[in-house]
């Protein structure tokens, strides 16, 4: 019984190691976009192999440099430059447990720093530094040597790395809550290019992002409100509920507006938790945000999820359903019937290359969900033909995708 009671308590928080406000990075200047792209590539690990393996991928997102490793280790890094020296600071994590530590590095002026700052492509980049395994120590050597760029042929074809629950799960001890605007802001640093969000309606019919059916202590701070989310109005949720890291439960409208205005995310998958009577509320928001993205010149796709026959029936009752971007999780026939742009079977059904090829010939795309195991990710990327993978670990998908030659 003691075990039962202890097991019901929230697990510990995992801190994000940081140099703090006195970090040397605050004295540096940001890198311009053309400099950042030069750093993207495949690097050989010549020191630090015990943690990061023999090869890593470095890839810039909107504001972070992500180091992706083959086994689930990753680093989220801030980068600046001073006098042609590239300064890199951040932390590493292992996605399958709560191991974490600091990582600091630099690229010397004569080891690629000058070329990167000046926006000149160079075959020689050496990243030297250190990382620690406990607390804020930096006692292990790190050295990465640039091997090659990410294949241009690969980058020319769109492949979506979709992060689950707006970017990552609360249960993975990330520093922000799942299905929050803070997570949408955070997730690109993990290597994702798209997100899946869970959509439910409140009592007063406002679509909000929340995964579980109930307000509960797994996802929210302990407060005076608990129970089914559709029992409460948005105002009640706003004032009486905070997500586990203190954020409000976001309205779908606010979350999508943030995606459009403040991120480079290119795909949003609206996972409809309500199977009936939600399409008429959600689709107008989807249209409004797609128009907003278009007005801003953003290449953004927002797909309404169709996870069940009830959802399909609700969807097909909408007047413009044939031209509404949607994602169908059921059969290929259902995809055709609903004119969904995306077919998204669960990963346990296999790579299904024949059906994926059939989808491709129809001018549609195929994603699979939710793939987290390293070996399966590797297999699905190397042997499958999906156009995207939904995962809790976008850096793992990113590693195996970006190391491909084409």
């Amino acid at each position, binding site marked *: 019984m003691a075990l039962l009671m202890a097991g019901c308590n929230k697990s510990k928080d995992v801190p994000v190691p940081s140099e703090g406000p006195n970090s040397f990075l605050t004295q540096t200047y940001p890198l311009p976009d053309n400099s950042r792209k030069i750093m993207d590539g495949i690097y050989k690990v010549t020191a630090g192999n015990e943690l990061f393996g023999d090869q890593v991928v470095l890839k810039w997102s909107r504001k972070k440099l992500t180091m992706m490793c083959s086994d689930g280790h990753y680093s989220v890094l801030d980068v600046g430059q001073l006098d042609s020296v590239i300064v890199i600071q951040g932390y590493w994590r292992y996605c399958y447990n709560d191991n974490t530590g600091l990582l600091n590095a630099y690229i010397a002026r004569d080891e690629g720093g000058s070329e990167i700052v000046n926006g000149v492509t160079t075959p020689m980049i050496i990243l030297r530094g250190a990382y620690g395994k406990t607390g804020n120590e930096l006692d292990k050597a790190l050295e990465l040597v640039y091997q090659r760029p990410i294949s241009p042929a690969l980058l020319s074809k769109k492949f979506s790395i979709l992060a689950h629950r707006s970017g990552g799960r609360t249960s993975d001890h990330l520093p922000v809550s799942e299905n929050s605007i803070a997570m949408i802001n955070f997730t690109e640093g993990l290597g994702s290019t798209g997100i899946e969000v869970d959509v439910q309606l409140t009592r007063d019919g406002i679509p909000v992002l929340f995964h579980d059916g109930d307000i509960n202590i797994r996802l929210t701070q302990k407060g*005076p409100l608990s129970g089914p989310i559709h029992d409460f109005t948005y105002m009640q949720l706003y004032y009486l509920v905070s997500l586990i890291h203190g954020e409000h439960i976001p309205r779908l409208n606010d979350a999508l507006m943030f995606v459009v205005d403040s991120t480079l995310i290119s795909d949003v998958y609206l996972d409809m938790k309500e199977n009936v009577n939600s399409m008429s509320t959600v689709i107008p928001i989807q249209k409004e945000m797609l128009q907003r993205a278009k007005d801003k010149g953003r290449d953004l796709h927002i797909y309404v999820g169709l996870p069940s026959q009830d959802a399909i029936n609700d969807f097909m009752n909408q007047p413009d359903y044939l031209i509404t971007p949607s994602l169908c999780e059921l059969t290929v026939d259902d995809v055709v019937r609903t004119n969904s742009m995306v077919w998204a079977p669960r990963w346990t059904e296999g790579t299904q290359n024949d059906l994926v090829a059939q989808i491709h010939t129809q001018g549609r795309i195929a994603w699979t969900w939710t793939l987290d195991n390293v070996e399966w990710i590797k297999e699905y990327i190397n042997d499958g033909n999906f156009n995207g993978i939904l995962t809790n670990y976008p850096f793992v998908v990113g590693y195996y995708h970006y190391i491909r030659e084409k």
Partner: protein
Amino acid sequence: MKKITVIILFCLLACFNVRSQEGNSRVTHFSLAIGAGWSHYFANMDLVPARNVHKEFIGTSFQFMWEPEYRLSLGLETGLYRIFKVDSVLTKEYTMDSRMYMIPLLLVIRMRIVDHFYLSVAPGLAIQLLQIRGIGETISSTQYSFANFEACASYLYPLSKRFVVGGEARFFYIGATNDNIMSLNAVFALRL
């Protein structure tokens, strides 16, 4: 041979057990008990200042017990407890209050430790009823908690063969919301 020995030993033990029951003149009986008293909520809310949480209420319990053995008894328990009432000041214009009630449905395992003194544990379900008053309409919401646990210490003094009075102290843990309450109840029981 080993199997046969085990079987013989088992039969002998079974016989001895049956004989030990033969001499027992105690009559198996059932009892109904009702309790009422003070309950206290151990406030653990992150979002609400402790001063806004009302913690002391009146709680009631009902037990139906089957007492087939000398020391152990089994039974079912329910009751009604108010867990908390929270006053929330949202803005200068708005206030809201939420009240949580709980109806437990428990399987009770009770053991007499010494004369008139009992300890019991009770796992089971809890129905949680939440009522919110404030902005907009009054809203009631129901949720179910499946991992709950109660521990109880009782002193039960028989007034006669049929009537028992006493007191009990109980602690209740509600898994779904991580809430804890304790209560001190006066108990009246009727042996059927």
